[in-house]
């Protein structure tokens, strides 16, 4: 491949260009409006991560996927998926959260807050997440009640605040 511009041309254009950011990308999604947020203590972060683990596991069960199947379909690693489902001290990588957010259509902002990846957390999200998590059992399949609670919680996450 050949460049269709010269070094002189580029130098002269760089000199005359304003100092602006030129980053580009293809998919920035609509963002929810700002909501009241509070800085979380470590123990609250652990509770949120427990709730995130329940959420990811139940979403996976709802889609009737094994860990290996979800990992393959969402292009993430099985180990990371196991960690996010079961280890509240695991810090999920941004890429993992992004892929899960895209795969399950759950806003990345909410998943990031539940993963403890942000400094502050929406207070009502915290309350809803903990309330949702305490109602679930660690079973290999979803009961009708759990499915109803899961769908209600996902709808809450998807709603704009």
């Amino acid at each position: 491949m050949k460049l269709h511009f010269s070094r002189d041309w580029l130098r002269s254009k760089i000199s005359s260009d304003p100092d602006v950011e030129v980053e580009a990308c293809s998919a920035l999604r609509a963002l929810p409006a700002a909501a009241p947020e509070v800085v979380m203590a470590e123990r609250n972060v652990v509770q949120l991560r427990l709730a995130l683990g329940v959420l990811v596991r139940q979403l996976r069960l709802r889609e009737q996927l094994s860990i290996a199947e979800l990992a393959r379909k969402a292009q993430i690693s099985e180990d990371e998926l196991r960690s996010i489902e079961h280890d509240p001290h695991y810090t999920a990588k941004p890429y993992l959260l992004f892929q899960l957010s895209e795969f399950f259509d759950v806003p990345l902002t909410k998943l990031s807050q539940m993963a403890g990846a942000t400094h502050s957390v929406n207070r009502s999200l915290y309350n809803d997440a903990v309330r949702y998590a305490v109602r679930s059992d660690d079973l290999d399949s979803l009961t009708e009640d759990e499915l109803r609670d899961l769908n209600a919680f996902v709808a809450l996450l998807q709603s704009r605040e």
Partner: protein
Amino acid sequence: MKQVVGPVDLLNRHTSVFEEACIVHGLDELNLDDFERHWQPMLQARRAEFPDYAAACAGNVQDWHWDWVFESYKAQHTLGYDTFGIECDGRTQALMVVDSNQFALHPSQQRKELVHIARLATAPWNRTKTVEHPKYKGAGRALVATAISLSIELEFGGRVGLHALPQSEDWYRRCGFFEVPDPNPKNTLKYFEMTADAAAKFLQEGE
């Protein structure tokens, strides 16, 4: 496999002197190592300074979750998907991924093939909103000109499309890009296209 496309120059803002850089097609261990060891920690640290995603976007770290290792893997296994980088002073100064399987939306060139800039990012230490004294200037223009060059080489006439950040919309307009309505209502960024005529004008002093 990484190939050197050609030499260019970037302006070192600290010394006001141009330094030789090179544009590469395809990324190798050096580029991905730079991303994982130098870009990512800076972007994530800066992201943590913002309370939410919207603030992070305004602070120009909207790409904190991008995974260039994955983009490189995808490019190696997908026809028409290519990665480019700029190396200067032994480091990767900017990265770009393009998709040449896309079609134009601008009325004058509708349904004609174009090179779509799927992602373009400069190293965090070159960003005016990320560090107090950003280092190199010009990597963005060099990569946009590279995408136009690729479009010419593929016989797409220099047609290029991209979604621009709000703060860089004026710059893209000045470069000759036209704003075109985006058919995907979920995209919050404006979509721009460069026509073949605009590309020729953009590079008129080039060859």
